[in-house]
């Protein structure tokens, strides 16, 4: 079996997984935000391994997240592009990489980021999720037009 880049570079710093998803090439220090943006918390069932600030030839340092027994959908992984656009997704089945793909910045994101505007209708008890249009300069609240152009991670729900 061909060794994965992860296994070679980190000398199995984090154990290989049989089935699941490996998110590689996450910008150094962003792994915890990636986990947050995917909605993975201490109460979710999957075994989760995180390696942060791993030396990388191309990136200097990178983070890696391994999630066992769960294959992330395209919609889920594209959220990661908001904070780590160089991330790559490897779907693992029986220790083999079956799919390898990059992340694409979505045009619209719902229910992931909270609008910072306290006067926004999305911050009330209305039966809606937050919704943002994604533009090159930042996230644009669909409801109140507020723009988030920096510190995106501090607004992740």
């Amino acid at each position, binding site marked *: 079996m061909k060794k994965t880049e992860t296994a070679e570079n980190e000398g199995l710093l984090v154990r290989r997984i049989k089935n699941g998803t490996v998110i590689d090439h996450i910008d150094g220090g962003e792994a915890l935000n990636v986990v947050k943006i995917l909605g993975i918390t201490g109460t979710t069932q999957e075994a989760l391994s995180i390696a942060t600030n791993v030396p990388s030839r191309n990136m200097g340092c990178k983070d890696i997240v391994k999630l066992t027994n769960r294959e992330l959908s395209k919609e889920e992984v594209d959220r990661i592009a908001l904070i780590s656009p160089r991330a790559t997704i490897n779907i693992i089945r029986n220790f083999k990489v079956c799919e390898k793909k990059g992340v694409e910045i979505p045009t619209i994101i719902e229910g992931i980021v909270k609008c910072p505007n306290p006067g*926004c*209708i999305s911050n009330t008890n*209305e*039966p*809606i999720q937050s919704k943002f249009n994604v533009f090159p*300069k930042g996230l644009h609240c669909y*409801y*109140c*037009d*507020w723009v988030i152009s920096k510190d995106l991670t501090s607004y992740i729900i």
Partner: protein
Amino acid sequence: METRHLISIGDFDRAEIDNLLDYARQLDQGNYNKNFLYGKILATLFFEPSTRTRMSFESAMARLGGTSLSVGSVEACSIAKGETLADTIRVVSGYADAIVIRHPKEGAARLAAEFSTVPVINAGDGAGQHPSQTFLDLYTIRQSMPIDKIDIALIGDLRYGRTAHSLASALSLYNARLHTISPKGLELPATLEAELSDKGMEIIEHDALSEVIREVDVLYVTRIQRERFPDSSSYFNVSSSYRITPELLCGARDHLIILHPLPRVDEIDPRVDVLPYARYFEQSRNGVPVRMAMLMQVLQ
């Protein structure tokens, strides 16, 4: 056919704005079918106080042969019992052919449009948008001069003043030059300023109106709200320094027009009312033909 909502001036391009203003002018001249909206019902949902906007929408509806329904005060409706706006809108959609809404939360009209089965017109949402006011502001400017490349001064509370935000956005389509004069802390929001600059609009900040009064074609005055200040004395200090008086208008261009969305409190000296520059009462009257045009557009 897809339901047409009127939520933000940003949803309109230049041609659409010009078309609506042309249409309003026809209506203003009396060229319309007085039963055009016969049998149609407009629901006016005002969760904040309003005199001009609400009455001019009701007047516009009546002039076109339609009728209006309203909930009365907020205290008298189900919102006071904790009902969500989404539910209120779903219910009212069944009672009327269009909804006009004013709400203290920004984005409320956008939410209403998501849950409504009939057209929604935004009549002001918090510090956000107020597109019908913008249409009548533009209409009033166009009565006196072409809108293209005007120099306009916005004075007063530019941070929370939604009419100023909407107007500035619309004027970016007309290559207008924006002069801003506002108290510290009530400046144009940085995000809006960046958005306007990206659209190529020139924005110049001034400390006092006297710096720019000789250069502007339009002076747009907004109310400085007392609740934005920590105490009464700081409010009076600021508001008096932003008051428009006949003396301050010395040297103004002959064709200058002064607009104000009203109500005014102390921002314009009543002595200005009789000067040829004053157009704010005419501006208020223009709300009727402009809102007639908006109603006809969404209900036809």
